[in-house]
């Protein structure tokens, strides 16, 4: 099984039981399939909010949704190395079946964190001196010619010599003749020093360690070597970045004005009143004070409809929360542009269509009529767009 960033696909599945969050799975009873190319298929079953089974299985029948992807993407998404949205948008991850249901799996599991292997002091020392040459900054060592010998005491200790000459750096795990400066330090202290957990001044002040020879040379260490990167990822913890979430909610009042007022009052009386431009003759729905094309005042009202034909329907799969209520409409729904009887051309009226009829609507175009629709009026009408509940097919 292939490894990606040191992790294989099975690691992800095997750890699911530990990573399961019951609070993210309340009321869920479903099986989810994972089809990982060249790796195999897994079926994850949740029963009444508990993780019932994670099985490697060939048959994914009965799953509400199946994720299809490759091993690298799968591991990447689960470890946060690959952006899940990008992988999905870019077609690297596909979901077959109920997309919405599958979305819940994101909340069911904690992120996969690979188990860390401990590093001993000896491991660190070897890694630290092993990376000295690669951390050498050539440009910072111009005109420098010296040898630093580091005598590391303690069980993990040893002697290393770092030879800087002609802008090159060599490290030997031994003493060399005539070092410019010799440092004496305990194994753990050297590790802490290199990891930045302590500093040389503190150690020397505490009598832990000594410097023999040209101390000025020893001070150059930080300038001529890149900082050691802890393979365990320690050091500076990632800063906590605050994100404050709020909802602004302010009451508003709108004056309808006489034109819109008359239009809305018309709805209250089950009448749809268009106002007609005296110049171009277009019918405005809802009514407007002027015709923006002709720049003339439009005061004459004409009752139109209430039935008409659909000219175009927006088939809405994705609904954002309604900014007025904070509620999200159920999807899919249809927003229709209706050419009410008595109107011509583009004088359409926008409203909603009965939800169960969205798949039956035919758009009209040019001289081809669209589906005939009629308004469904509310019992209680207040002078609002929703005095009409929605339109429905007029059979």
């Amino acid at each position, binding site marked *: 099984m292939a490894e990606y960033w040191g992790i294989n696909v099975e690691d992800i599945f095997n750890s699911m039981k530990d990573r399961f969050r019951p609070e993210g799975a309340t009321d869920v009873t479903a099986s989810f399939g994972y089809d990982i190319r060249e790796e195999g298929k897994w079926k994850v079953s949740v029963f009444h909010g508990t993780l019932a089974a994670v099985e490697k299985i060939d048959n994914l029948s009965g799953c509400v949704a199946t994720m299809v992807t490759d091993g690298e993407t799968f591991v990447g998404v689960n470890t946060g190395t690959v952006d899940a949205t990008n992988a999905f948008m870019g077609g690297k991850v596909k979901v077959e079946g109920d997309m919405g249901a599958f979305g819940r799996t994101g909340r069911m599991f904690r992120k996969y964190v690979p188990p860390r292997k401990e590093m001993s002091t000896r491991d660190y020392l070897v890694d630290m001196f092993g990376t000295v040459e690669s951390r050498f900054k050539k440009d910072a060592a111009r005109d420098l010619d010296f040898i630093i010998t580091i005598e590391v005491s303690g069980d993990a200790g040893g002697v290393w010599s770092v030879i800087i000459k002609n802008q090159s750096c060599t490290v030997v795990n031994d003493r060399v003749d005539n070092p410019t400066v010799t440092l004496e330090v305990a194994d753990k202290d050297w590790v802490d020093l290199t990891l930045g957990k302590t500093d040389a001044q503190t150690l020397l002040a505490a009598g832990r360690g000594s410097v023999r020879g040209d101390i000025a040379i020893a001070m150059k260490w930080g300038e001529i070597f890149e900082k050691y990167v802890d393979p365990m990822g320690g050091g500076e913890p990632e*800063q*906590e*970045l*605050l*994100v*404050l*979430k*709020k*909802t*602004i*909610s*302010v*009451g*508003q*009042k*709108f*004056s*309808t*004005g*006489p*034109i819109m*007022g*008359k239009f*809305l*009052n018309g709805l209250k009386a089950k009448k749809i*009143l268009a106002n007609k431009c005296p110049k171009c003759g277009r019918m405005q729905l809802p*009514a407007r004070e002027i015709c923006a094309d002709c720049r003339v005042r439009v*005061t*004459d*009202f*004409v*009752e139109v409809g209430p039935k008409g034909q659909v000219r175009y329907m927006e088939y809405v799969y994705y609904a954002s*929360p309604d*900014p*007025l*209520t*904070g509620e999200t409409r159920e999807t899919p729904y249809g927003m229709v542009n209706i050419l009410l009887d008595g109107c011509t051309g583009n004088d359409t009226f926008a409203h909603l269509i009965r939800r169960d009829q969205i798949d039956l609507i035919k758009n009209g175009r040019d001289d081809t009529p669209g589906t005939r629709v009629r308004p469904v009026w509310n019992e209680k009408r207040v*002078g*609002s767009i929703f005095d009409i509940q929605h339109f429905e097919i007029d059979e």
Partner: protein
Amino acid sequence: MSKKAEQSESFIVEGKLALPYAYFAGRVGSTFITTIRDQKKIMGVRCPACGTVYVPPRQVCDKDFTDIRNNWVTLGNSGTVVNFTVVRYDDRHLPRTAPFVLALIKLDGADTPFMHILEEVAPENVKIGMRVEATFAAKTTNTILDIDHFKPAPEKVRMTTERPEAGRKAWTPGDEPEMQEKRRGGKPDMSTPVIITAALTGAATMKNQNPAVPYTPAEFAEEANKCWKAGAAMVHVHARADNGMATHEHDRIRATHDAIKEKCPGLIVNLSSAVGMGKTAEQRISQIVAVRPEMASLNTNTMNFSIIDRKTGKIFIDYVFENTFTMLQDFGKAMEENGVKPEIECYDMGGLDNIMLVAKQGFFTYPMNFNFVWGVAGGQAFRAESFIAMMNALPPKANFTTCGVGTEEFPCIMQSCLLGGHMRVGLEDNIRMPNGEFAKGSWELVEVAVRIAECLGRSVATPDEARMIMGLKKK
């Protein structure tokens, strides 16, 4: 069908705008808030180009557009109110119910004021210039309200802990060579603890100049106690009537003296034998004899003791402070006979010479304790060389302390401390801190003296050490 719209068709529709949003604090803002939350520390950033310290911190100095994000400085959690407003209406977006105070607070060490809620003080008692400190929220919101509010700062941190000498070994007089010799050689004895005296009232400083001036015995006791806690070994007292006027009434003076002694039994109380303007010689000395404090002031010359506009020279009150040789002799004898150690007040070299003439009669006990007073309108102004001349004129084994009027307080006590002498501060002499802000009490000026002693490496004398130094008998 054609109809026209009428104005009457217009009506009002109730609407609402409800939108979720987020605010990303960013690295600088997050550091600021999480430090408040986790470490109860308020941090600002200093612009390396113009030196301005901003709080709340920002990434860029708006004056010179320098990137300042990494120049963090820790500020005090207390500061000074530079402006405030009282919110007197209620609205759901407000953090408190009305009335509450929103104050602009300049934190110690910051250059920009910082707005927050000021509580635990009635709105009518909020004053520009008042000291306030942060109270941190018990529960975090990851916002600036992790500081729950600011409140009036009580005594500074030192006041709630122990006196400055706490924990050190008590000082005992050793067999040092004659101090005077040392002084003359320009090598003051810095090993002697420095005695800090708090002059709580004087005869003329009133509450309208600084509200911390005590009038009642209880206020004296409270203020004396604060000074004692801050590091004073002695308080100098001019008792006051309830209306603030200096009094020679024995009962009031005794009540004041006793209230202080009751509150802080160890503290040395030094009563004034001047009392206030226009008192007779008898009024001035009889109260000393009656109350018998450990120490009392003894003034050394008849002099102008006036109130004059320091800028224009205009005379407000012209007054002659009478201290004839007879009075020097009578007061001095009365004190010594009653076990009251005189603190000899010298307003100039002539006063010192006066006392030395009378001293030839031999009734003063040694060591003699002098106080060099600077800046009285009628006495000499502070000059460093005058100070040294005065010091060099002292008799053997004499101690000296000093006090100065107004801003002269600080240089003169510092010089005294530097030369091995002692220090007197307090609202009698000066009502402001070195930065010009009103002192919150004599105790805050005592703290300044303590800091001076600390800077010079001198320990602060306990009252008992002060007694040893000045030759007092504890009562």
